[in-house]
């Protein structure tokens, strides 16, 4: 049996929801354990005082990437059957900026706001109310913005395809970039701590 299990018919639509639920709970649990149920901790990222978000997310990326790469290489997984969405270059840049502003102002991103609500944070409830309003607003505005949202469609694109590099080389470069980012993040944190101490 090889992955992806759903594509190979190992379980049906209903069972996939149970699997998704279990994965979701696990995701939320580890976000909470990393301290991401706290808006203070999350926004410290933007003041360069605590770069845990960068470190946790980059660790997750490296772990998943290495896992997928080696499972596929060893034949436990068929990477060509894994679905991923299209790249819509400009709309995704704009969307990323909007999400970033929301993150700084609200103190959460969508996933961490759910985690925070689960641990009883009231500001997360307010944040999620905002998310809901945003979703409805987006839906209502759809006819006006559909053209933009679907523009600059590059299709499903991977980094090896985009840069014309070998898959393994991209994996190596991402690992090196992550380790460099961790090192840099620690240095920044130390410097900020010294400055705080000096004030």
């Amino acid at each position, binding site marked *: 049996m090889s992955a992806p299990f759903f594509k190979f018919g190992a379980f049906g639509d209903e069972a996939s929801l149970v699997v998704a639920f279990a994965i979701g709970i696990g995701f939320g649990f580890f976000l909470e354990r990393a301290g991401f149920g706290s808006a203070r901790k999350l926004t410290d990222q933007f003041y360069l005082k605590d770069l845990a978000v960068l470190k946790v997310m980059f660790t997750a990326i490296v772990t998943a990437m290495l896992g997928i790469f*080696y499972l596929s290489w060893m034949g436990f997984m068929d990477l*060509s059957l894994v679905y991923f969405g299209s790249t819509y270059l400009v709309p995704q840049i704009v969307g990323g900026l909007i999400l970033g502003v929301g993150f700084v102002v609200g103190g959460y991103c969508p996933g961490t706001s759910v985690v925070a609500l689960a641990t009883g944070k009231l500001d997360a409830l307010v944040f999620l109310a905002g998310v809901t309003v945003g979703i409805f607003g987006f839906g209502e505005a759809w006819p006006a913005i559909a053209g933009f949202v679907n523009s600059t469609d590059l299709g499903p694109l991977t980094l090896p395809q985009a840069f014309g590099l070998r898959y*393994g080389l991209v994996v190596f470069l991402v690992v*090196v970039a992550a*380790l460099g980012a961790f090192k840099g993040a620690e240095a920044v944190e130390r410097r900020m701590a010294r400055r705080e101490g000096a004030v």
Partner: protein
Amino acid sequence: MNISLASWSLPSKLALVALGLGALALFGDPYGGGAVTIQPRELAAMVQKEVDHVSVQELSDWVLQGRTDYRLIDLRDATAYAAYHIPTAENLLITELPGDSLARNEKIVLYSEGGIHSAQAWFLLQAEGYKGATILRGGLDEWNDRILHRAPAASTPTAGTLPPTPGATVAAPPAVKPPPPAAAPAAAPKKKKKEGC
């Protein structure tokens, strides 16, 4: 400077592991160099369970719903395609098949006049690792009968539209023909008519 591993912190050790795996990845290929193993039993089971089929009713629903999560491939030649094809179909000959335009993670629906060409193309794609390839049951003939003309259930079995076999001695092809009458609900109540191009 102490280089003994025991004195390293856990994050440093993990970083070393990641770096090692990253360096080893330089020599690997996650797509397995294109080698695909064909598993005859698995294919036979798919045929037996008929999970490799899409019915014309299902397809007409998809077309009407405007679904975009499948690729409909017309295997007939360009002239026949130009004369008529099922809405949303793309024209690809069996010789062009795996091609660059199809991805192995897509749901692919194949059709030809009857069912033989599409069945052959299905095997070809499965052998190349296109697990999402399916056949339109009964092909264009059944689409014409059931969706376009809404013929009463028993009127035209597909045999009528098959080209007469020239050499009577050649026996093989009909083995892959789908069983046309069984699948259709007799009443065929909510059939939709759909225009061509």
